[in-house]
């Protein structure tokens, strides 16, 4: 049965338009979420990483805890927020791609932010000291930190993408897994398996594995570069 399913999965990947539309939707939803998370987290991570203020330690601890936030909890929070009786219910976003982006954003921000803070904190003090000593203002010093930490920031983005594209609980809860509308790779795999249709599930699973493998490969390469830099 496995061999038969694999063969069907390969056929679907080469011929099935639906498979690719699910893949594309997944990439768009997760890509948008990670892009937004990056836009929010990197400046915030720079500020937190470079500043000294009261409550910084507890704040970082909260962010780090958020890195392990269960997707279903993130989904539940966003569901409550966007449900008809919730504070943002009037926007009518529940069971849309936008709701899925918001849920994945909630998952991605702590991860990208946490890694960014850690990367900025690990920038050699000598680099910042040297920049300031040569006349860098705060923004210019922050740019030095960003430049020094660039490889780890890339790791943060890839890790964020890896986390959100592979999660199922949050998107299922707020997206509803509507075929042709909000169905993404993970929710499609769940549905197909539930129906006993393993071919599509396997095809999507293979794509997810390829994405995970590529992301890990890129991260490993970046880390090697960072070690050698």
């Amino acid at each position, binding site marked *: 049965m496995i061999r038969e399913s694999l063969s069907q999965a390969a056929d679907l990947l080469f011929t099935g338009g639906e498979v690719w539309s699910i893949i594309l939707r997944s990439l768009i939803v997760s890509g948008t979420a990670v892009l937004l998370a990056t836009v929010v987290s990197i400046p915030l991570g720079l500020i937190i990483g470079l500043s000294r203020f009261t409550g910084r330690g507890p704040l970082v601890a909260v962010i780090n805890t958020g890195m392990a936030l269960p997707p279903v909890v993130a989904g539940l929070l966003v569901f409550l927020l966007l449900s008809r009786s919730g504070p943002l219910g009037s926007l009518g976003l529940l069971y849309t791609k936008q709701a899925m982006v918001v849920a994945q954003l909630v998952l991605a921000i702590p991860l990208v932010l946490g890694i960014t803070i850690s990367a900025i904190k690990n920038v*050699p003090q*000598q*680099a910042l*000291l*040297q*920049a*300031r*000593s*040569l*006349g*860098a*203002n705060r923004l*210019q010093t922050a740019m*030095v930190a960003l*430049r020094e930490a660039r490889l780890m920031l890339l790791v943060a983005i890839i890790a964020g993408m890896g986390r959100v594209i592979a999660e199922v609980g949050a998107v299922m809860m707020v997206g509803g897994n509507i075929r042709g509308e909000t169905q993404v790779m993970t929710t499609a795999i769940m549905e197909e398996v539930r129906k006993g249709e393993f071919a599509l599930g396997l095809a999507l699973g293979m794509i997810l594995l390829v994405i995970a493998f590529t992301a890990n490969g890129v991260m490993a390469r970046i880390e090697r570069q960072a070690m050698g*830099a």
Partner: protein
Amino acid sequence: MSVLLKAEGVRHAYGTRRVLYLDHLEVRQGETFCIMGPNGAGKSTLVRILNLVEAADQGTIRFDGQRVSPRSLAARRRMAGVFQQPHMFKGNVLDNVAYGMRLRRRSRDEIAAHAGEALELMGLTELARRDARSLSQGEKQKVALARAIAVRPELLFLDEPAAGLDPQARGRFQLDLRRVVKELGATIVYVTHSFTEALAIGDRLAVMTAGEVRQAGPVHEVFQEPADVEAARFLGFENLLPGRVVGDAAGAIVELEQGGRVYTRSRLRGRVTVCLRGEDITLHPESAVEDISPTANRFPAEVVSLEQAGAVFRAGLDCGFMLKTTQARPAVRALGLVPGARVEVRFDEEAAHLISCPSPDGELRAGTLRPSGSATGERPMAAAAEDDSHD
């Protein structure tokens, strides 16, 4: 000479560890001001605070008469610093040398001209297109110096820039540094561990221990006349002999606690510590006791220890009181120095420097960390620094 930089009441701590306790320090326009002290004395912290890259917990810094802080960007841009571990920014040597000017948004022409001059001055023109991070440590340090001088700072901070280099590279770097200091004409604050460097290029010198400036003044004066036991110990006075002035001839005659009398040129009275460098002691065959010698400080002695320290030998001598001396190999050979050998010790009256030490445990107290004007009754070192800085 006008004062360019003045620090007053500067205090700084990392957690509960106090690292800086400075009452007063001045750097004058155009001078090379050296700072020396043992590791952990607070020199680098002081430099970072004066360079306005780190904020002090307390105190004021005035630059060119204006009160400044790390937020004073205009003041910071009139300064530059080179640190122990040079950090190379990503890019080639030219990018690094141009970095400070780019921060100041200087024109392309100006950047090219100043960077070119700085590279030439440091002999780095050939390396301009090399990846800065691929350079050797010595080359990186030269790039760091070129990068600092390219912005034409009025005040240049050098924090042990040769510390991480091997002896050969250090020698070459110090030669470059001397040339640059001469040509730049800027005011320089130079932290160094090298007495030779401080004597060669310094105008004034501050000695720091345990976060305090023990003494500041003209380099030769500080070297020859340390203000307290702590400074003397750091400045290489190996022999610190407590005693009391019991009479005078041309100067003070000191009766040592260990026994024996030392003749000096000092005018101090009361309890003192005699400071004597090992290299100011000469050894002679014991049979020469009857020779005519201009010095009154002549003592028969027994060699109690002898050990080789690189190219020289360090000898411990018992002449009623204990002395340490450094002797070159030929002298050791000529005198047949071995433990148990008997010799005559001589040193000039000028070589014996006296430090006032009013209480019986004065030496002990001088070696402890204390705020200025402490209960020892000694002249506070920070006050001494202040007086010196008004010379």
